[in-house]
């Protein structure tokens, strides 16, 4: 049977990807930031997931305002790197896992989560930067990755509670898949940041710390956070944190925090990263 072994949360700031692509990781600005991924890279090399489910948001690359799916699951064989205005990042073409992806879509839809099924989709920095941070610059990503794109640009995004419950439905789907597969779920985006308008640059370290501290042990506190609180206190783009809750929902109630990294600033944002290992499953 397939199972979820662990969760990785990470922001997906484009500058971090650019630093890797352009060989700038040794520069003073980036050194403390990338130091926080040394453990993570070793950990994932040992963990060896068979499949990753990567929750992220598309930034007007695959979806425009013509069509705005709240939850879109990538069921294709592969996903190319998107051109976001300065040419596509030179990262491997991502191999998907259509069989598991379709299984999740069917299971989740019958579980009353109406996912949009996507068979053609380019993936932008929201998706590729977390993979680069965890795997560096390999010829190919070491395992298939299933993209789950969440709308967090057009207001309102799905609630934290909805995201958390979708995570649970995904876990249920994974656990009913007959092949033996070890699955790691990534929740990306955040932490507090605001890119737009006169208030651009907002960072709320206290909010972020509260979020990181409660994420493992008390996710019920976080799922209750309303949109307005995210917008006001964590910045208009800080609302991306609802995507972390999908990952959290896909894990068991009991988890162990293996690693935490928090760094300000990365570009215009507060960068957060957690690795959680699944504890024993509740009965």
């Amino acid at each position, binding site marked *: 049977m397939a199972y979820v072994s662990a969760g990785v949360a990470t922001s997906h700031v484009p500058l971090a990807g650019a630093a890797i692509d352009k060989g700038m990781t040794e520069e003073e600005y980036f050194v403390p930031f990338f130091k926080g991924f040394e453990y993570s890279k070793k950990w994932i090399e040992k963990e060896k997931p068979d499949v990753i489910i990567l929750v992220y948001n598309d930034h007007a690359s695959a979806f425009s305002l013509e069509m705005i799916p709240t939850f879109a699951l990538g069921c294709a064989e592969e996903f190319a790197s998107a051109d976001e*205005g300065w040419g596509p990042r030179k990262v491997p073409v991502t191999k998907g896992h259509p069989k598991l992806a379709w299984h999740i879509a069917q299971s989740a839809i019958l579980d009353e989560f109406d996912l949009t099924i996507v068979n053609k989709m380019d993936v932008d920095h929201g998706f590729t930067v977390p993979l680069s941070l965890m795997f560096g610059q390999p010829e190919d990503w070491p395992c298939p990755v299933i993209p789950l794109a969440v709308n967090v640009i057009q207001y309102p995004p799905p609630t934290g509670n909805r995201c958390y419950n979708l995570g649970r439905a995904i876990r249920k789907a994974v656990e009913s898949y007959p092949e033996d597969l070890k699955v790691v779920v990534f929740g990306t985006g955040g932490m507090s940041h605001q*890119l737009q308008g006169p208030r651009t640059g*907002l960072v709320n370290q206290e909010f972020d710390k509260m979020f990181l501290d409660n994420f493992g042990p008390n996710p019920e506190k976080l799922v209750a956070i309303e949109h307005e609180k995210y917008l006001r206190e964590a910045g208009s783009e800080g609302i991306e944190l609802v995507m972390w809750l999908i990952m959290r929902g896909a894990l068991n109630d009991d988890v162990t925090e293996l690693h935490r990294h928090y760094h*300000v600033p990365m570009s215009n944002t507060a960068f957060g990263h957690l690795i959680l290992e699944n504890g024993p499953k509740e009965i």
Partner: protein
Amino acid sequence: MTNNPQNPRTYNDIPGTFVFDAQHSRKGYHLNMLMMSLIKPENREAMKADEEAYMDKFKLTEAQRRVIKNRDWNGMLEEGGNVYYTLKLAAADGTPYEAAYAAMSGTPRDVHRDMMLSGGRSPEGNMYLSDWENK
């Protein structure tokens, strides 16, 4: 209570912030679709070659044309733009994001960078319109 669908716009008293809601999205649809088109290299070329002619292809208002022409990053947001869309114009121009952030911030680039390096813009005094009105 933002998550109450009957009263969804209480977030309007967050200062310096454009929440990309239905009203905003409808206003900015054509402007954002122009920005979206810039993910294709041939469109970036066409925009660079003749901006006026390129803008003619989209149903823009006069105000939208003006803010695009002036690279008025906050103005684009006021006219319904969303930052993930408008940043595509910055990318097409070769303008670093940081320069666009600083422009929206209303400060020189080094001042904005120093603010970020010292921990970002504090939430204190920046969460309610009344905080800004009393400044």
